[in-house]
């Protein structure tokens, strides 16, 4: 028997003693490592989510910039923070998609039979996602800088805006992990996710000043958390952030986490 050698299998079965179970930290790190490997082997997925904001950046800046804000440069200042929020928030949909993939492909079953700290798969996946968010945010910010974006808040302001966007997106990602555990397929999760996130992003102040919109729309845009997050990012980049915008953005992230994180971990343990 050449392919699966019986003696070798019998040997492999008895060769090593069982190690002690891993600590919560090493289990979570192992899942984080898995997330990194996926970024390395499937960079297309990251590209998918980054390409839309990049296209928007080029399109809005050069096609509509003059018309909307009077000049390309002025519009870039306005739209770049919005696109930063959009690109990172879009990336959160994939947190739900990959969780659903694990569920439908049976990986969750295997992880659930391991004697590991229960939340490790979720926490580890979040670590991988955080790297994704930072990459997506960095790509769009760098492109903006290349195109001539020179925010008054300086490098610190840009980093603070990126940091706040990542924290906000963490909160949002729990919404999609919950969704990912409810739906039947990765494709359905993706569709539902974008159906939710697209209108929320477009009915925000990311691209246009709310004052230019019809009244009802304007009212919605003003309370849309993505608008508030965008205002906070704009403020941080411009060096004149309103404390209330930052506080509300953090509050939304905390609220989403408080509601959807327990729901996600419960579904992860029980969904069959």
């Amino acid at each position, binding site marked *: *028997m*050449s*392919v*699966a*050698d*019986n*003696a*070798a*299998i*019998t*040997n*492999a*079965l*008895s*060769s*090593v003693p*069982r*190690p*002690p*179970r*891993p600590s919560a930290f*090493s*289990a979570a790190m*192992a899942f984080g*490592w*898995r997330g990194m*490997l*996926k970024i390395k*082997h*499937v960079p297309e997925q990251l590209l998918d989510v980054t390409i839309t904001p990049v296209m928007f950046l080029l399109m809005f800046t050069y096609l509509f910039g003059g018309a909307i804000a009077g000049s390309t440069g002025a519009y870039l200042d306005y739209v770049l923070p919005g696109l930063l929020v959009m690109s990172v928030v879009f990336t959160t949909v994939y947190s739900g998609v990959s969780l659903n993939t694990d569920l439908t*492909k*049976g*990986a969750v*079953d*295997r*992880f*659930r*039979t*391991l*004697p*590991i700290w229960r939340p*490790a798969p979720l926490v580890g996946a979040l670590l991988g996602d955080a790297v994704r968010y930072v990459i997506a945010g960095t790509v769009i910010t760098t492109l903006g800088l290349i195109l001539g974006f020179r925010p008054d808040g300086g490098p610190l302001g840009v980093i603070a805006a990126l940091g706040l966007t990542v924290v906000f997106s963490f909160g949002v990602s729990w919404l999609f992990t919950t969704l990912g555990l409810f739906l039947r397929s990765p494709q359905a999760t993706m569709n539902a996710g974008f159906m939710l996130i697209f209108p929320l992003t477009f009915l925000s102040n990311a691209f246009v000043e709310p004052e230019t919109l019809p009244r009802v729309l304007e009212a919605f845009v003003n309370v849309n958390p993505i608008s508030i997050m965008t205002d906070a990012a704009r403020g941080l980049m411009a060096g004149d952030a309103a404390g209330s915008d930052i506080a509300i953005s953090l509050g939304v992230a905390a609220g989403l986490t408080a509601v959807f994180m327990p729901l996600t971990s419960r579904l992860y343990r*029980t969904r*069959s």
Partner: protein
Amino acid sequence: MTTNLAIEASGLVKTFGELRAVDGVDLAVRRGSVYGVLGPNGAGKTTTIRMLATLLHPDGGSARILGHDIVAEADAVRSAVSLTGQMASVDEDLTGRENLILLGRLYGFKGKAAKDRADELLGAFGLEDAAGRLTKNYSGGMRRRLDIAASLVVTPELLFLDEPTTGLDPRSRNQVWDIVRALRTAGTTVLLCTQYLDEADQLADGIAVIDKGKVIAEGTPGQLKASVGSATLHVRLLQGDQRPQAETILARELGLVHLEPDPSALSVQCPEADKGAEAIAALGRAGVGVASFALGQPTLDEVFLALTGHTAEDKEEVKA
């Protein structure tokens, strides 16, 4: 705790809405044996296995795995068992080696130890050449072997194998069978779900036949066959025109003869091998040329037909 049973289940029930997917299953599986759970698609095999592996909460009944209650002592059960599910649960975005290293780390192997363990398993399962390839490019057989290897990163006392050869070509199926035999030699208890009668017959020491969530028969492959009826003597003649003569002789020696569609073949119920040999000798003395003969046990197909009124294969084809 000191029980020689790896699995003791009594009255396990799982309902999905109206459907009683598992409807009072009792199982007793000896440590170190390969036990087959045989049933057609939808019989409740996967649901039973998932309850035993602590992935599903039973709605009724109880079970102990290696002495541990599956509900009250789920953690103890988890650390003693491994599950290779019906879907190959390898991560398609990772290489074969990365898949095994990941599991190694999750079982507590550190750094180099996890890598060494991965390489050892890849070697034993004939996957070293494919170790660095993403598993989405693996064939079905390779994926299945990797999936089983992944269940053995730490040697489990009990391995659940859910339809390990469904959809595999014959060569890959034989490789998986060899793996199950090697597991048995190494002393691992295996609970094997299958819809292939042949597979249970080849590998299992004991079999439970399940249909519509209930165990409808239980025993060794031999006992199951015996419960259906005696063995059959199959005879093929050199010349078809001697068949009437052969029929007369066999009817005298053994009883009612069945004429096969093949014009030179006949078969007859044969409770004892001695009498069969006697009957063949009688044919020779009468000058009837025998091309071949065989004393066949009834197939598990026939067992299933006798037990349920339908064959397992029928149902499977409908599904496919």
